[in-house]
């Protein structure tokens, strides 16, 4: 079945080609654009399913197709594609979620004037991501990585006319660049050490013993550098600032970024180059992995906390994404790669669901995004409500029925057995609580209680938007079938182990723990926010209960812990000062030098001119006069009349002729 890998390149090629074609379409051909994009995605989905099927045949299959890109000297730079369970699962998830999002955006962007451009970018985005997934060379992966970045930039800033959108796009681009810088350094270093960028190359790829042996100790640093890139893309702690701002883009874009493509890339990258991280591990712990763990923990907690105090429906989801990514990072860090990826996949489904649901809400509320202005929407938009509730349950990890729950359990399970320390485990538990809390808050605000300003004119979204929601909701539920510990099919599939069914494993302590935790979170949420949005005792309607109780803390959280401000004060201010300084240097110091030279030149100039005036000119004038006269004479010949020239030519020809005749 490994022949499939030879045709793997088609999966990214189809959407990319589609996007190129769409770009060439005029703005009037909206229908064709959408149709093309969706068709491209469907084809990609079909191909991905084929690839997936191929991997099902052989457990733990890893088919590789390498080719030489170019050769310099005796060095050959080789690229390649790989098909393994990781890639296949990602492919399937991305294409499926992507398809839903595409269909959804047909409805969501219906009134937008740059409809075609939007779909071109969408196809481009998903194509780039697919390429990233199947890349078997760190370089190729990096290329697609940057393409993904570009696509995200284009899409976040899709509404260019909005300055905030443009700013957000820039922020996203630059922030991720900072990460990619480290990534690229890592790539270079890796190439310098191991001489190959291929992951799997029959034993001497850089992720196989052959390559890893060459790396030795530097593996840690390379891994960390690469992790910079991952952190940038999937919004880990120092570089997470761009992700919430990315909400400026159209909601389907946010869905795509958060669920399927952009942020998944970071986690996927770590999972892909996991051998680098874990090389030289003492019972599954390396320094690089520890860093990953702690960064993940920080991110998860911080984001969850911030999410509690946000008012924008999409920002809340954004921060939840950040925290979920942190969760995945932790899981990867503690060695639960499969768990992390499983959560990534599950998260892909339900986060897309949530975002599209939020999009549907926003669409229904005519562009209102402030949850305080909504409320009581469950009657108005039932489909959205039900699906959104499912998504919320999945996200907050309600066990047994929702995919999110199982994957979270897996992760907690993995975290609990981390030898280094137990702190991450407990912190993750707290994170789960917080997640449940803020999701409860949001859903109460949006769907329950009294109808507030924006909810008055609200309406349910058209079918083209609700269908994807339903599909994704079903995915979010039935995806859990392959996740249960009773039948951990996906886990087995990813790790390549055989799978067997044991109902007993269902009843493990972790189940009850998470039940308790999630229950606590939801309960607390309901208790706090039962009267949210309505005046309660002496609390006015506009004020959040938590804000009422703890204004300082709430403010701290609402201002995102002043991280942006901190960056403004510190990094940006510093660069600003540098700029000013160099500007000053330019203005005064260098300029002064130049002026000085100029002055010297002038002095010389005056001297020489005087010499000229007195001495040389006298002679020159006559010459010029002569030349001018000659010029007049010449120009007289240029009568500008064709026939004169023609006559001249004729005479010349005659002269030549006579000459020849005379010589002959």
């Amino acid at each position: 079945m490994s022949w499939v890998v030879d045709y793997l390149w088609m999966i990214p090629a189809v959407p990319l080609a589609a996007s190129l074609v769409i770009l060439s379409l005029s703005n009037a051909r909206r229908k064709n654009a959408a149709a093309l994009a969706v068709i491209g995605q469907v084809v990609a989905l079909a191909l991905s399913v084929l690839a997936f099927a191929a991997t099902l045949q052989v457990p733990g299959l890893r088919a590789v197709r390498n080719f030489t890109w170019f050769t310099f000297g005796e060095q050959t730079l080789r690229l390649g594609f790989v098909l393994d369970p990781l890639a296949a699962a990602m492919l399937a998830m991305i294409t499926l979620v992507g398809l839903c999002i595409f269909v959804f955006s047909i409805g969501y962007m219906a009134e937008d004037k740059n409809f075609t451009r939007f779909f071109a970018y969408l196809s481009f985005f998903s194509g780039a991501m697919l390429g990233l997934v199947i890349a078997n060379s760190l370089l190729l992966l990096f290329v697609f990585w940057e393409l993904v970045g570009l696509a995200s930039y284009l899409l976040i800033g899709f509404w260019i006319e909005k300055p905030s959108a443009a700013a957000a796009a820039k922020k996203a681009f630059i922030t991720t660049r900072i990460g990619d810088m480290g990534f690229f350094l890592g790539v270079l270093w890796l190439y310098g050490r191991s001489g190959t960028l291929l992951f799997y190359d029959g034993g001497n790829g850089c992720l196989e013993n052959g390559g890893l042996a060459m790396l030795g100790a530097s593996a840690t640093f390379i891994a960390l550098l690469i992790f910079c890139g991952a952190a940038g893309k999937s919004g880990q702690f120092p570089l997470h600032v761009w992700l919430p701002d990315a909400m400026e883009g159209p909601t389907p874009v946010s869905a795509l970024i958060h669920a399927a493509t952009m942020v998944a890339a970071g986690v996927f990258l770590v999972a892909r180059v996991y051998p680098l991280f874990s090389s030289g591990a003492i019972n599954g712990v390396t320094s690089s992995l520890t860093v990953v763990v702690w960064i993940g923990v920080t991110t998860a907690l911080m984001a969850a906390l911030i999410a509690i105090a946000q008012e924008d429906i999409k920002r809340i989801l954004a921060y939840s994404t950040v925290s979920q990514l942190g969760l995945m990072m932790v899981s990867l860090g503690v060695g639960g790669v499969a768990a992390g990826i499983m959560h990534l996949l599950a998260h892909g489904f339900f986060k897309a669901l949530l975002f599209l649901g939020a999009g549907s809400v926003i669409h229904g509320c005519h562009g209102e995004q402030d949850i305080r202005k909504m409320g009581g929407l469950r009657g108005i938009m039932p489909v959205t409500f039900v699906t959104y509730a499912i998504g919320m349950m999945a996200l907050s990890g309600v066990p047994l029925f929702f995919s999110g729950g199982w994957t979270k359990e897996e992760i907690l399970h993995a975290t609990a057995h981390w030898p280094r320390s137990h702190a991450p485990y407990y912190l993750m538990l707290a994170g789960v609580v917080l997640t449940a809390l803020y999701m409860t808050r949001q859903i109460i605000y949006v769907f329950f209680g009294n109808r507030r300003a924006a909810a008055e004119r609200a309406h349910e979204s058209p079918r083209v938007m609700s269908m994807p929601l339903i599909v994704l909701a079903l995915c979010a539920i039935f995806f859990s079938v392959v996740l249960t510990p009773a039948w951990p099919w996906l886990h087995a599939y990813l790790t390549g182990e055989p799978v067997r069914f044991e109902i007993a494993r269902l009843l493990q302590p972790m189940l009850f723990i998470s039940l308790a935790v999630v229950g606590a979170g939801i309960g607390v949420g309901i208790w706090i926010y039962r009267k949210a949005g309505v005046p309660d005792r002496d609390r006015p309607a506009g004020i959040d209960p938590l804000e009422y109780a703890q204004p300082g803390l709430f403010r701290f959280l609402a201002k995102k812990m002043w991280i942006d401000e901190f960056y403004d004060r510190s990094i940006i201010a510093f660069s600003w000062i540098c700029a000013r300084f160099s500007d000053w240097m330019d203005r005064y110091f260098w300029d002064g030098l130049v002026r000085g030279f100029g002055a010297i030149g002038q002095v010389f100039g005056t001297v020489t001119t005087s010499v000229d005036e007195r001495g040389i000119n006298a002679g020159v004038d006559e010459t010029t006069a002569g030349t001018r006269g000659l010029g007049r004479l010449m120009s007289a010949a240029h009568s500008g009349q064709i026939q004169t020239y023609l006559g001249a030519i004729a005479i010349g020809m005659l002269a030549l002729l006579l000459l020849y005749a005379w010589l002959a």
Partner: protein
Amino acid sequence: MNGLAFILIAIVTLAAALAAATLRSLMHAALSFAVALVGIAAFFFLLGAEFVGLALVFIYIGAVAVLIVFTILLTRRDVGKTRGFNWGGAIVAAAVFGGLIWSILKTQSLAIVAPHMPRLTVKQIGAALMTGYVWPLQCVGLLLTAALIGALILVLEEKQ
């Protein structure tokens, strides 16, 4: 017979050519130009190059002459006031003619009669065009296309 035909054709051709060069009415000049071309085609026939002759008639009478008369028509308002005649040009032309004649008569190696030659069939020409001269043929085709487009663009009226 040949000589007779030659003399007739030469007289017709040269007379027509002279008329084309000197007639006052532009239209008459153009028409006599066409006649002169027919004469030249007749010369080609006389020299056993029927195909070239036919091509000449076809291209010049069918296309170029029509083009010329069309142009005359389109620039008609101007035809009236082009009465000038530049005698300097006439002198130069006469000088050139003299020089040519002199040099032609001077070189005795030209006073030869035609050797016997098998008739040149169209098939041969076609074969030559398609084998030895295929690249020139392509180039000419390209040139004609370019000329056509260029001419179109030149005479295109600005529609605004």
